[in-house]
């Protein structure tokens, strides 16, 4: 025991220092999150947080399991619609119950999607998820409870736990922030868990993971379901914030947008999706108010091309590279 502590001590020390640095970073971000609504418009911040959670959920799949889903909009929308419908039609329900139901619905849908798609690999996996998500999209156009093309409007925010009135944007913000922190913590734990190690091994070399006795499909499915559930959580929360659930969330554009956010911020990094979502949402908001309003898609497309061509590991990925090179 003592022998190993001695032999491992430099690396263990390094790891401990890295953990401490990470802890400090988390604390700083937490503090920023807590004071942010006094500096910026809370609704705008909530939009960023909802999309950031969505992107983080997506990144768990692409960045840590190596699975490119092109159908994540279905989970965002399912969470949103289920929560929106329940809260609108049952005024007695508290918002957290509605959100929980939406999340569970996405979780269930994720199980179905995952079970069907996981057997395929690479581009075929992406195609299956896209096809399934399109089916869900057309279902939501036709289904009576979604309001079709109009969407669900005026979803009541209600009172959290029946106690805290969420109609105040500040109260709403702190609730969304808590949801985000919880979701982020779950992802960070999943990535750094025994499960996360196997997931990483599968991403690195799938046949080898099989030859070590791992049933890789089962691991991928669990990752897929977690990701779908968190995407649903993001959608549900977003519906409560904006009191709105619409087809925009179910459209394949949304599946594309989350890929853009993740790649731009840095796929396979914990903070990448957060940065990417913040950037994309800010750009969309800023541009929509400027004379360039009609050019949003073109500008985002151009940024995406530049990202893929010149900084492929995304903003956070590139920063990490620089840090690793200079401060090792």
């Amino acid at each position, binding site marked *: 025991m003592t022998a*190993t502590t001695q*032999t*491992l001590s430099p*690396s263990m020390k390094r790891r401990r220092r890295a953990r401490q640095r990470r802890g400090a970073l988390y604390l700083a971000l937490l503090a920023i999150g807590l004071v942010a609504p006094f500096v910026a418009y809370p609704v705008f911040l909530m939009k960023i947080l909802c999309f950031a959670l969505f992107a983080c959920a997506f990144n768990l799949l692409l960045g840590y399991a190596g699975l490119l889903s092109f159908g994540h909009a279905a989970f965002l929308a399912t969470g949103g619609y289920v929560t929106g419908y329940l809260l609108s039609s049952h005024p007695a329900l508290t918002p957290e119950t509605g959100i929980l139901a939406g999340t569970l619905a996405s979780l269930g849908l994720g199980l179905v999607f995952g079970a069907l798609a996981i057997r395929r690999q690479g581009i075929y996996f992406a195609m299956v998820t896209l096809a399934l998500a399109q089916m869900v999209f057309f279902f939501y156009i036709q289904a009576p409870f979604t309001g079709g093309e109009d969407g669900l409007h005026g979803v009541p925010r209600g009172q959290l736990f029946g106690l805290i009135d969420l109609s105040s944007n500040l109260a709403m913000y702190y609730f969304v922030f808590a949801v985000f922190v919880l979701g982020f913590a*779950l992802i960070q*734990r*999943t990535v*750094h*868990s*025994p*499960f*996360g*190690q*196997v997931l*990483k*091994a599968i991403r*690195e*070399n799938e*046949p*080898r*993971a*099989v*030859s*070590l*006795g*791992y*049933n*890789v499909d*089962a*691991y991928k499915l*669990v990752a897929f379901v*977690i990701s779908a559930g968190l995407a649903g959580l993001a959608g549900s929360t977003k519906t409560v914030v904006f009191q709105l659930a619409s087809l925009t969330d179910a459209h394949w554009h949304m599946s594309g947008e989350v890929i853009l956010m993740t790649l731009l911020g840095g796929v396979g990094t914990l903070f990448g999706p957060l940065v990417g979502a913040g950037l994309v949402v800010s750009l969309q908001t800023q541009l929509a108010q400027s004379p360039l309003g009609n050019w949003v898609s073109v500008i985002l497309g151009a940024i995406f091309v530049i990202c893929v061509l010149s900084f492929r590991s995304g903003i956070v990925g590139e920063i990490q590279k620089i840090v690793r090179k200079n401060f090792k």
Partner: protein
Amino acid sequence: MTQEFVLETRGLTKEFRGFTAVDDVNLKVREGHIHALIGPNGAGKTTVFNLLTKFLPPTRGEILYRGKPITGMRANDIARLGLVRSFQISAVFAHMTALENVRVALQRRLGTSFHFWKSERSLEPLNDQALALLDQVGLKDYADVLTVEMPYGRKRALEVATTLALDPAVMLLDEPTQGMGAEDVDRIVELIRRVSEGRTVLMVEHNLSVVSRLCDRITVLARGSILAEGDYAAVSTDPRVREAYMGSEAGETEEAGA
């Protein structure tokens, strides 16, 4: 059925759209042997490997492990039985450290591999065992090195350590010395000899000097079927084998080319 043969195939056949890659192979691997599968390029050696480890489903035939049929099992369940394979291209987890590579093989035993809510620090009790395995293949100093940064020969050694972590009854090695310089080859030969104690090894190998130094029994494949079988002396003097290799010492020349 006696347990004399740990691994056995009966009439093993694999056809790809009319092309028969493996044709009616009856292979018997004796417990404790180092058994080599050799043959010219395209003889079906790697296909046999993929069939044995269920990475490919056979068209016909049966595979028996300790007398029990395993033909219908899945690849990951085969590994759980104790039949663990390596790959032709060095199969390591490139963006994990050497220690993590071995540990990921060890951790299955803890039964917590689906626990996404536990800290990965719960794996640290395995570190000692992982280090010991790394030490066994001479990689102790590489424990914290990312595998992608390790030299090729070391990666192959790491692969052996990862395989050993499962404590397999049968190790299936697919060209363990492929693409190596002479020094690395010697090291791997020593390593295989050392770790084969108490185990059975079935290996595909091009390098005939490696085969002659290591193997108790040799099966020669040509065009998908067994051409000859026996110890090195018997096989190397067999005229049919010499003809299949076109009189050239294929192993040596390919080694130089690789």
